[in-house]
């Protein structure tokens, strides 16, 4: 049986994470990724990788079903999961921003800002700490559409290249924070599988330094 189960985020981060692992000598069997199987082992059988939605990475790791995981800082801040975060992998760099097509944000005349977002907690925390009352409209996707159609005054969303914003006539008005992918570890696994977790951290650390 594999020593560690590692949860990886499907989509944006998946390729970057697998490349990163490959650089430290952890390779999954060829062809395994092409299939629709949701878990694969590395060639040496030391690690089992499970592929889940990004927001589910902290869930699997916090419950200890996965010992470790790779997730963006945006996802971690939104989830508030109680996890160890020993390593910034310096990959999957992006920004969480406030974007709108108006130059002045508080211009709807009501003194309350309507914000569409996939990140309700981050949004509430950011505006709350500035004393700006907001009405948060939680959406699951295509957030850029909301201000265009008048559902909201602005959005809080993740931006990589800024193209989607451009194409929908939105501009970044504030950067909330920069996000990169983190290695996260379950608190019990950190103790009970200390040797295996320590090795993984060491290997990834060297690679992360080169990346930075």
């Amino acid at each position, binding site marked *: 049986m594999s020593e560690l189960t590692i949860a990886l985020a499907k989509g944006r981060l998946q390729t970057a994470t697998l490349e990163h692992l490959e650089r430290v000598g952890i390779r999954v069997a060829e062809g395994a990724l092409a299939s629709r199987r949701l878990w694969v082992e590395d060639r040496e059988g030391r690690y089992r990788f499970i592929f889940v939605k990004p927001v589910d990475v902290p869930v699997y790791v916090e419950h*200890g079903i996965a010992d470790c995981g790779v997730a963006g800082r945006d996802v971690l801040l939104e*989830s508030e*999961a109680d*996890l160890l975060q*020993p390593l910034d992998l310096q990959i999957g760099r992006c920004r969480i921003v406030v974007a709108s097509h108006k130059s002045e944000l508080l211009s709807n005349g009501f003194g309350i800002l309507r914000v569409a977002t996939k990140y309700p907690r981050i949004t509430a925390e950011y505006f709350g700490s500035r004393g700006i009352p907001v009405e948060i409209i939680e959406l699951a996707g295509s957030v850029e559409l909301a201000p265009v159609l008048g559902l909201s005054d602005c959005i809080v969303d993740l931006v990589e290249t800024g193209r989607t914003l451009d194409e929908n006539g939105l501009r970044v008005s504030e950067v909330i924070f920069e996000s990169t992918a983190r290695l996260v570890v*379950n*608190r019990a696994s*950190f*103790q009970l599988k200390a040797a295996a977790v320590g090795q993984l951290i060491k290997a990834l650390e060297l690679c992360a330094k080169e990346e930075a």
Partner: protein
Amino acid sequence: MSESLSKVPNGMRYYFGAEARLRRYVEDTAMAVFDGWSYEEIITPSVDYHALFEFGMGHREAERAFRFTDTDGKMLALRPDVTSSVARAAATLLARRARPLRLCYTGLVFRQQPPTHAQWRRESEQLGCEQIGSAQGSADIEMLVIAVEVLKRLGLNDRFSITLNDVNIFNGVAERLALDPLARDRMRQLIDIRDMAELRRFLAPHDREAQAGAFARLVERPGKSELLEEARRLITNTRSTEALDRLERLWSVVETLALADQFEIDLGDLSGLDYYTGLTFKIYVEGIGTRAGGGGRYDHLTANFGRSEPAIGFVLDLDALTDALSRSSSFAPAQESERATERLSGDDHGALFVRALEHRANGARVIVDDRGTE
């Protein structure tokens, strides 16, 4: 029945059958061990003033209590913790008793939890011991030995790990760096999540004697006696050094008791309640992703009640232990007991129950079968 009456609130649940038997078994096992070390059971009120828990656990933890108001407008809470209440009893009701007081309990605690959180239960059961009035190192060891005995008796022999730390090691370093409370909290948080890169960046401007950078190396991961030796070389302030002395003495006893395989030194373990003042420890059991318990020294807590004295205690999380046991294939006690059962029936209820009472008087288990009667 309407939907609202059928539904059980989030984080609340029933236990029955094998699960209920397992809980009772774990409870009985732990309480028998506590009794074996001369700890006397104490039963504390389920409802108490919220202020008690604010003093006892700190504001942040106490905020998670279920709160409501008393008829006089004072804020009450369903107890989120038992230790605060035990400490108050020690300083008031039991003030005249000889020291050290040895008290133990099994009790339900109630905490608000976000439903997505891994420890999703909002009602959970704690098994705990408190020793009040002794500052001796032997009290620290006694706590650890009792916890180990409970885990071993439950059959978790090689499946647990206990980490040791002393809050004064961190406090001494933070003092030396002259951090303001906010910065100190940030440092503690970074260590708690083991974000070493960020910790080094954060410490760089404060690091005139290179002590902080060295500290980052020490808190990175747990170790055994070699970690204490390294800590000795790298940390020089008095407060931390005294704490290291105590940990070293404790570790040598751990080695004498042949428990070194089950213990680790973890100087990065800084999470948990604000009330700890010395030794802290956390208990992990294989098969569950959350902690199975923990404890430590809380020498200032009883001062809140007008009588300052040293104290140490720990809790085991019954839910975590039963999870670990029910996932273990080798575990049997949850089976329904094999004891023979007398099945009785008859139309003459008088005679039927006379027979049933005879069997009961002999200690037999009976089941009154109403099929075939009437």
